[in-house]
């Protein structure tokens, strides 16, 4: 489906074609269109602040006296310090966002949980794009039975409600993966599990878009020329076909990050997500609704951070779509 592109995008396109700037590359034009998209710039700024918050917030703010350990701790240890005498405290000077059911500081947990949520979002979106692009391109390029087999599989996956697929995936992989280390943090295997299941259940729309694009691209002369020169199929797919369908891949990747963060939150909310002491914005909400009256801060802060992140990413994605694809070929996938 095509969407009416915003007026600024249309004006920019016209300007880009004007003789005043004859030497701009398509990428420079796209950049310029993106910068003119006001909400996308706001989204980028908010997203930047959120990334700074989760990256450097820990060393700056996460510090306090942990009664069970009888010492002042900082960083992730403070986020995981459960002082049960301090449980379910309302937001105060000592605990800006209050404390949770076992007395952990919610502010510190939103910082360290945010790292995991963003990591899950980015990694799952990358996996989605790689799977979607490869499956779509292979199906379109080889055609025949490869195409029918891959597309029947894609349709089958699309016919199962995605949240149900996520839940089944979470049960399928549940608890079977080892603990791993990343950037100085120890992460439970369930983080990897969530990334895998979100990536493995979200590639279908992109695969269809890429397939449609590659179907028309592979008939072009330059592909025939490459084939005549003896270039291998794999090389044709990766260096000649996929780069020409980059726009939907970038847009899908961006919106995929938002989808993955929300999916993680849903699965965690249902108690099937990241387990153990590792906080994520999603599993901080697990069980929080039982304290609806007593402790609204339990769900309000992590939930609002999810909303803010997803909203910013959606704005950026919208801006990218207008910038990379002013004629609306990509369509709405969100």
């Amino acid at each position, binding site marked *: 489906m095509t969407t009416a592109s915003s007026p600024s995008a249309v004006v920019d396109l016209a300007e880009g074609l004007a003789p005043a700037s004859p030497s701009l590359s398509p990428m420079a034009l796209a950049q310029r269109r993106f910068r003119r998209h006001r909400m996308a710039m706001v989204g980028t700024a908010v997203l930047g602040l959120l990334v700074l918050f989760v990256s450097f917030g820990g060393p700056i703010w996460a510090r306090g006296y942990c009664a069970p350990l009888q010492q002042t701790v900082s960083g992730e240890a403070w986020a995981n310090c459960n002082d049960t005498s301090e449980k379910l405290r309302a937001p105060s000077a000592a605990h800006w966002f209050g404390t949770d059911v076992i007395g952990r500081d919610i502010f510190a947990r939103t910082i360290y949980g945010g790292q995991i949520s963003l990591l899950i979002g980015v990694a799952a979106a990358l996996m989605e794009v790689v799977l979607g692009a490869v499956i779509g391109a292979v199906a379109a390029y080889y055609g025949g039975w490869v195409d029918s087999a891959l597309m029947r599989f894609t349709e089958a996956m699309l*016919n199962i409600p995605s*949240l149900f697929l996520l*839940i*089944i995936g979470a049960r*399928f992989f549940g608890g079977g993966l080892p603990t791993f280390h990343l950037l100085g943090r120890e992460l439970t295997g369930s983080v990897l599990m969530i990334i895998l299941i979100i990536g493995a259940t979200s590639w279908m729309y992109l695969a269809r878009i890429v397939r449609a694009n590659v179907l028309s691209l592979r008939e072009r002369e330059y592909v025939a020329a490459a084939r005549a020169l003896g270039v291998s199929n794999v090389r044709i797919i990766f260096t000649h076909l996929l780069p020409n369908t980059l726009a939907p891949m970038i847009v899908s990747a961006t919106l995929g990050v938002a989808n993955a963060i929300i999916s993680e939150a849903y699965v965690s909310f249902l108690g099937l997500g990241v387990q153990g002491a590792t906080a994520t914005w999603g599993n901080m909400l697990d069980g929080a609704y039982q304290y609806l009256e007593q402790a609204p801060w339990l769900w309000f802060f992590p939930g*609002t951070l999810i*909303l803010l992140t997803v909203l910013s990413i959606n704005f950026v994605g919208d801006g990218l779509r207008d910038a990379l694809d002013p004629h609306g070929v990509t369509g709405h996938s*969100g």
Partner: protein
Amino acid sequence: MTTYILRRLLQAVPQLLIISVILFALMQGFGDPVATLGARNPPRPEDKIRLRRMLGLDQPVYVQYLVWLVGNDWMKLDMDGDGVPETPGQRKGVLRGDFGNSLVTRRPVLDMIADRLPNTLLLMVTAELVIVVASLAIGIYSAARQYSLADNVITAFSFVGFSMPVFWLALTLMYIFAVNFKRWGLPYLPTVGMFDPAAGKTWGELARHMVLPVTTLSIISIAGYSRFVRSSMLEVLNQDYIRTARAKGLNRSQAMWRHALQNAALPFITIIGLDLPFLLAGAVVTERIFAWPGMGRLFIDHTERADFPMLMGILMLIAAAVVVFQIITDVFYSFLDPRIRLG
């Protein structure tokens, strides 16, 4: 047309088979359902072995799948474990309408689904009606006033709307309209369940309990759909025939209602048609938060118990509905839009 429908139905059969194989394979990773049976008084190890044999779980996966698909009433089973098959099988298989019994309740899967389906449909159909009416109204309104202040405000709100995680919205609505309204002495809405046990299951009670879940379900979808209506409306409004209609003397609203809306509604009908089967699935998260006894809750509860006949039943019914509604939507669309030829 008849041949088209027949061909599509025939194509649907392998599609559903593929789905069932994928799902059955995934269910194998759920662990042993017998291990979680009888939580309070776990069966003895020898009983577990017997139970596994009775349920057919001792068979290889492909045999289990075949039994699930075509039943086992045509063969004899070895129930006492002496290596000699002696008991005739009882199951008829999914192809003959037997989805088996739930491992948890031992009741037929279809009966359990039939118990929950009306609750889910009541909630979801109401929500869908609200969604369709509201998205059409909002979408048309903002398309008619493109780039006006109202349009921009609606755009901003719809971005926030479809970025909202459903639980955040649900909890916020509950906190405002149930918790705080009660605190402030205002008439407040109930948060959980379908009716107040003290008041009984009356339509009034039901309606009161539906307000918050229906609002939760609607707001997020309206945000997305009204954008969709707006953009397809704008696309149609830029077509030549609208200019012709205006040129022959129709005013803006006449052109809009008589010519634009009919054409702009077509893609919207497709989207709604493709969405309808997912109503059967219910809303897992919403039903969980509002303790609504529907299909989504049924699915979650039985996922925890690895009750795979139940899960396979729910998922296959939804998948079948999805496939059937795809065909219905395509056929319906060709009736509405004579430019489309099905072949």
